[in-house]
């Protein structure tokens, strides 16, 4: 069984994260579409740290001897997922950024061509 103290600390941390995310969304500092993965992460950690028997069973199922490390493994997995998601977002943004720069440059060259009395 997971030591009670670990469960409490983990639950408190997860709750804090959850509140922080919701607050960021409320202040429009974080778009919902990017918050969803974070919310799922915080919520899963919260549930598993509070529902201690479920964490124990989950650890048994995948063969983790010490249940709290299952919690950490899960948290790490979610963080990786969020990071990977961000990499795809960055790739898309840099692509769009490139397209914008190209369009702008071509438009400017057209404009100059017109304005120049040749």
């Amino acid at each position: 069984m997971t030591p009670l103290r670990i469960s409490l600390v983990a639950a408190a941390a997860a709750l804090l994260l959850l509140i922080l995310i919701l607050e960021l969304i409320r202040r429009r500092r974080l778009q919902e579409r990017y918050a969803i993965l974070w919310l799922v992460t915080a919520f899963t950690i919260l549930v598993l740290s509070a529902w201690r028997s479920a964490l124990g069973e989950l650890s048994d199922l995948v063969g983790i001897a010490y249940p709290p490390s299952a919690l950490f493994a899960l948290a790490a997995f979610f963080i990786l997922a969020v990071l990977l998601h961000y990499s795809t977002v960055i790739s898309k943004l840099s692509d769009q950024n490139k397209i914008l720069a190209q369009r702008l440059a071509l438009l400017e060259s057209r404009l100059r061509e017109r304005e120049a009395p040749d």
Partner: protein
Amino acid sequence: MSACGGAKLSGASPMTDSLTSVEARVADPRLSRLRRVAIVPAYNEAASVGSVIEEIRAVDPELEVVVIDDGSRDGTSAAAEGAGARVVRLPFNLGIGGAMQTGYQYAREHGFDLAIQVDGDGQHDPREVPQLLEPLLAGDADMAVGTRFAGGARYRPPFARRVGIEVFARLVTLIVRQRVTDTTSGFRAVNRNGIMLFAADYPHDYPEVETTVLVFRHKLRMAEVPVEMRTRASGRSSITFFRSIYYMVKVSLALFIGLFRRYSTPTEES
């Protein structure tokens, strides 16, 4: 390195007679109805871009020169405009891939039939443009690449570089099933098919190897033309030790993933 085996070579006359044949080729009747543009990507090449432009004009006055200023901070644009080129000025540095693609987009928008890539640092000799265009005019290829290794070309790069070039040349040869000797050459010419393809799809950085494969994936034809490359007039090569490692890894990854990608050829309407 004897690299003639099976390669599709055209205009196999190196420097010896190229000077005398230039005038004859410029008057080539096949060229008269074709609008052609030389794309010169330049990043902080103010010192050399002007003379490159003048050289290109001297070879073929009908050839429009467009310089893609890739966010230079040394007056490259002004130098290019002063030499009489059109300038497309990117708001910030995109890297060679993004800059080249901008050139092809320019060629697409302005309805050019032929586009020739010439580096802004002076390492490509514009007097060899007629040879480069030969396979396109003959209808044998959609892209012609100036190679430093096939036919009469004599270029001996440093050992490490030679190994890298050779590895990718073999890899690409394997993938496209046509002998390719120089996958790193940026001295190229394409017809309208090539312009449409590259305007729509062009790799971000170190694009030469990937574009070679891209051309074959889209069922376009490629021919190699032996050329001489000069040592750069100014500026430094963009290849350093760590970058060359990134180069190998990035290009290998792109080639590998490219095998599993789906391709659709862009058309005039898209």
